[in-house]
């Protein structure tokens, strides 16, 4: 080290130390109590002589550690570990919903392109089908990567999936044509749910699956749900279009059932697991509480709008669609409310004991 004009004066060291101490306050309290002095020693040991400010890479590195410790990294508090698990489940459930939402669109669009149910849809080229196919495959691939421990790839795919959802919804709004003028609020609301879920799922994946995060719980269960639900939704939507094309209103009922599956079924199944596992209810409760907010925010106003527009819809779209839509929305609202109620009940009933242990240095130093 240089010892001529840049020799550390006590004043310079004090200034740097005081700035490092301020920087270390970013860390969670419990971690700081255990580690701050040791980390300060390391930072001062590595500081070049004459330096008065922390380096940008040190600030970035400590900020990243502070975020990771608050979202489930080993060494963080039990509450942070629980929050990290909530983020992970929230991300996985969100990606599952996104997959099923686009799987239903894919089934619909493929069947419509074959049967010519709507004018203009029968002549669909390969591109829109490929786009919706990608929109289905991306969140599914992100989910598979995340549960199989490929966090970095999973996070990239989750972000790409959110971007593609934004593009898809922008495109749908642009191509809605006269429907956009008849039901503008309905269209916007019905598209807000997948948009909101894709954005928050990507954010949760980024925060919950960082490099120091524990692996996802019950990976096999997520993969089994995905493997069963995607073909089911695809089959329902295709059958709905086929039946409708043959002049039977029951097609809409099948479509409605498929749509009901799309949004609330995953959290509904998840809450059953959560409630059945007494040791972990608070994790599921919080995940589902968060997840049900965007769904409810859309389902309830959408239901009231549909009722308001009942006569107009009946006129424009026909009674089959009206019946299907109302049942679908009613189911979505009821199931979502049920999820919310169970989540709240579960959170109140059980002692909020976080499930993860976070071994630290206590007792071993």
């Amino acid at each position, binding site marked *: 080290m240089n010892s001529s004009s840049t020799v550390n004066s006590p004043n310079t060291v004090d200034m740097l130390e005081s700035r490092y101490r301020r920087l270390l306050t970013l860390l969670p309290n419990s971690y700081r109590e255990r580690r701050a002095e040791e980390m300060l020693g390391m930072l001062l*040991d590595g500081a070049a002589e004459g330096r008065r400010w922390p380096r940008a890479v040190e600030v*970035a590195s400590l900020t990243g550690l502070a975020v990771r410790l608050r979202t489930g990294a080993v060494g963080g508090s039990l509450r942070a570990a629980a929050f990290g698990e909530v983020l992970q489940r929230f991300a996985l459930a969100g990606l599952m919903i996104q997959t099923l939402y686009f799987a239903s669109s894919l089934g619909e669009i493929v069947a419509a392109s074959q049967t010519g149910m709507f004018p203009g849809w029968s002549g669909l080229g390969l591109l829109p089908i490929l786009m919706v196919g990608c929109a289905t495959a991306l969140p599914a691939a992100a989910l598979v990567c995340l549960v199989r421990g490929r966090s970095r790839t999973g996070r990239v795919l989750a972000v790409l999936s959110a971007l593609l959802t934004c593009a898809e919804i922008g495109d749908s709004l642009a191509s809605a044509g006269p429907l956009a003028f008849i039901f503008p609020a309905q269209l916007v609301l019905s598209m807000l749910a997948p948009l909101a879920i894709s954005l928050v799922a990507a954010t949760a994946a980024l925060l919950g699956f960082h490099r120091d995060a524990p692996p996802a719980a019950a990976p096999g269960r997520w993969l089994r749900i995905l493997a069963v639900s995607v073909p089911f939704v695809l089959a329902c939507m295709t059958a709905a279009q086929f039946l409708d094309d043959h002049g039977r209103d029951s097609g809409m009922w099948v479509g409605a059932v498929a749509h009901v599956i799309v949004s609330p079924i995953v959290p509904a199944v998840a809450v059953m697991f959560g409630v059945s596992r007494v040791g972990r209810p608070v994790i599921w409760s919080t995940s589902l509480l968060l997840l049900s907010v965007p769904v409810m925010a859309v389902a309830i106003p959408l239901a009231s709008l549909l009722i308001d527009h009942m006569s107009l819809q009946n006129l424009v779209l026909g009674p089959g669609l009206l019946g299907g839509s109302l049942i679908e929305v009613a189911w979505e609202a009821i199931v979502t409310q049920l999820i919310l109620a169970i989540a709240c009940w579960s959170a109140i009933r059980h002692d909020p004991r976080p499930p993860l242990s976070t071994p630290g240095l206590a007792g071993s130093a």
Partner: protein
Amino acid sequence: MNSSSRTEQVFLILTALVDQPRHGYGIVQEVGRLSQGRMELKVGTLYGALDRLTSEGLVAPDRDEVESGRLRRYYRLTENGAEQLAADAQRLADNARIATERLRARGVALPGSTGIVGGLV
């Protein structure tokens, strides 16, 4: 974390602790030396890795010392850590041997043996 997913950073941190316990800055310096200056461990990366390795029982705190008013906590490699590192090293050596054999069969000169890398067809 299984051995196949252990990163190079973690591998070098464990390697840095093989011969003696070291404190945080000592680990940073040793990893820099082992990687020939290629890898500079940041404070967040190092402590995130140490927390994880400690929780996995591969590394343990050894002792605390205070020098010039600064706390230095030393870490040591545990027996379990040494076994895991040995398994990782063996796996990497096996992989390197296979790659080397194939490169030689292809006629590629390897750095440090017969000269510089060259002769790629």
